[in-house]
């Protein structure tokens, strides 16, 4: 069977539904609705029209020639998900799930968010479709991504800062799950990544795989061949699954996921789930996770809120376990260097998340050498990260205040 044909609930020994019984009915309903919707030409047509006229798809592929000079002479091609409406790949998934919400007759949506990109995308779709919207966001993240909180509120969403546990993405997911258990009758949970219980890993991947499908054609048209390597950052892993999927059965194409190595893979402050974790159950799926010897989740660390997650999508765990994809770590410092390098060589300011993939691409280019083609998923733009970058590179004049 082709690797692309895996539909869940299990990916090898990973995946499943480790959830309270109260959620099973909602998950069954969602699975069934998704199976029907994805085969329904009317649903597909409505989603395709939104992706074209609202998101601006297809996103272009940009060759980064000046940036590539730092990558051992390899050709670096950027899949520009940063140019999507709302500034990242997250909108692809959200529009599909919002359409599905309408289809199953629910009127309220909830979502978790880390960096705020998924929350902004969900708030956007809720505004577009007239749905009530509540976003759960760890208190720590509301502080480091204050601008995205404002965006969500401007779009009409209620943002609830989560104060339990580590007050980051994982706790936002816990609180969103608690909300869903309580309000499942009128509420749909728009999950932001390829993690969580079935059907989320397969459904979110199905909605993100357009990235790889477009890019595969675009790279063929541009270079006359498939890329040697595809690089993407991995937190939960939705942009990576999105760009990997079309290439899963192209065995000559190397697939590389770059996890946040934070302050270093050998420190305790990283989010390198596959590289440093072991299999367990978190947020409804069996997958690799960062945990202590008692199975308590260990807090992750990354300069990028979007990668600061101690779990990972089960399909990635499976791809790692069968050796189809390779997962490596990129430190905060290497990612920030790549962010600055792309800004200065190409005039493109990438999200800190995506900068992990760019740093990885520099490494891959040097390994693969002249003439190699490396496709990078530039999953989001860096506007939301200006405060972090400004502080990191000391770009903001002391005492200056935005007026």
């Amino acid at each position: 069977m082709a690797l692309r044909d895996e539909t869940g609930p299990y990916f090898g020994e990973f995946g499943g539904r480790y959830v309270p019984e109260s959620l099973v009915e909602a998950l069954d309903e969602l699975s069934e609705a998704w199976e029907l919707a994805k085969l329904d030409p009317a649903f597909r047509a409505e989603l395709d029209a939104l992706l074209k006229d609202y998101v601006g798809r297809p996103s272009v592929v940009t060759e980064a020639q000046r940036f590539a000079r730092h990558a051992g002479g390899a050709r670096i091609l950027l899949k520009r998900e940063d140019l999507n409406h709302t500034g990242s790949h997250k909108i692809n998934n959200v529009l599909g799930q919002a359409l599905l919400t309408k289809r199953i007759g629910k009127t309220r949506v909830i979502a978790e968010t880390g960096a705020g990109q998924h929350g902004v995308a969900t708030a956007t779709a809720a505004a577009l479709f007239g749905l009530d919207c509540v976003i759960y966001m760890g208190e720590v993240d509301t502080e480091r991504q204050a601008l995205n909180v404002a965006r969500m509120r401007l779009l009409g969403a209620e943002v609830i800062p989560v104060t339990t546990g580590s007050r980051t993405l994982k706790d936002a997911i816990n609180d969103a799950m608690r909300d869903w258990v309580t309000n499942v009758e009128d509420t749909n949970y728009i999950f932001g990544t390829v993690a969580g219980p079935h059907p989320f890993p397969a459904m979110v991947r199905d909605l993100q795989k357009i990235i790889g499908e477009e890019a595969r054609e675009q790279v063929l048209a541009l270079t006359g061949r498939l890329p040697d390597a595809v690089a993407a950052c991995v937190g939960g892993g939705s942009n990576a699954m999105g760009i990997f999927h079309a290439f899963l059965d192209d065995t000559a194409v190397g697939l590389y996921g770059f996890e946040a190595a934070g302050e270093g893979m050998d420190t305790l402050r990283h989010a390198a789930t596959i590289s440093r974790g072991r299999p367990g159950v978190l947020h409804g799926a069996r997958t690799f996770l960062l945990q202590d010897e008692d199975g308590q989740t260990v807090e992750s660390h990354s300069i990028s809120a979007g990668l600061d997650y101690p779990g990972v999508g089960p399909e990635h765990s499976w791809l790692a376990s069968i050796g189809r994809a390779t997962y490596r770590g990129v430190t905060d410092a290497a990612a920030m260097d790549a962010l600055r390098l792309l800004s200065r060589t190409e005039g493109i300011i990438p999200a800190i998340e995506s900068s992990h993939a760019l740093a990885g691409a520099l490494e891959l280019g040097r390994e693969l050498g002249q003439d190699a083609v490396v496709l990078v998923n530039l999953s989001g733009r860096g506007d939301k990260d200006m405060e972090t970058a400004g502080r990191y590179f000391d770009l903001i004049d002391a005492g200056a205040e935005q007026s």
Partner: protein
Amino acid sequence: MSAVADVIRTRVDAGSGALVGYLPVGFPTFDESVDAAVAIAQSGVDVIELGLPYSDPVMDGPVIQAATQQALARGFRLSHGFEAVRRITEQVSVPVLLMTYWNPVLSYGVERFADDLVDAGGAGLITPDLIPDEAEEWLAASERTGLDRVFLAAPSSSDARLVRAVEVSRGFVYAVSTMGITGARSDVDSAARGLVARLRDAGVEHTCVGLGISTAQQVREVLDYADGAIVGSALVSALSNGGVDAVASVAADLATGTGRRG
């Protein structure tokens, strides 16, 4: 045979039903959590549901989250869970079920966990985020060791899922009174009565209702149609605010709802 089922049967035969009391290990301290469990057993609680603190407790409301987070911050380890079961069962004869999210069990090793729980004198497990569909390893380990396995049933569960929950559960089936998480509520949902009736149709022998029960009056109402009433947050609040004496007094009051004391 299941000691939990025996206790429930005795209470039902006597004309009421069982009172199941939840407390987490390690809150406010390890010793006090053991003393509190012993005290509620001596005050009329028939079955102890002993919670293992976990970093990501998606079924728990604010009161229990705050307690278990504090226990974790103070260095709770899984080994303390087994030690607590041992110390409680040495002092009182009520059966003790562990309530645990699945990852700690998986991480410890399902078979090893089952063996150590038997050694400690525990009766079995309540597994809030393990549905029968994913429970193959636990079904095998509990079959081998004879431990009870309490699965949850929800108002939203299909008839087929209720039948499955009844088939695989031993001890009792945990009927979730309302759609939601743990925490006291002013009135226990009428959904509970309907769910218990559907569980009876599915052939359940014993079912206890939990989530939202905090007063003797609610215990009395629930025991009118169910075999047991499960109380958690109300006990944890009492322990948090007034220590072991307070939790014992709240347990004694709740036990009046079973019609045996007061």
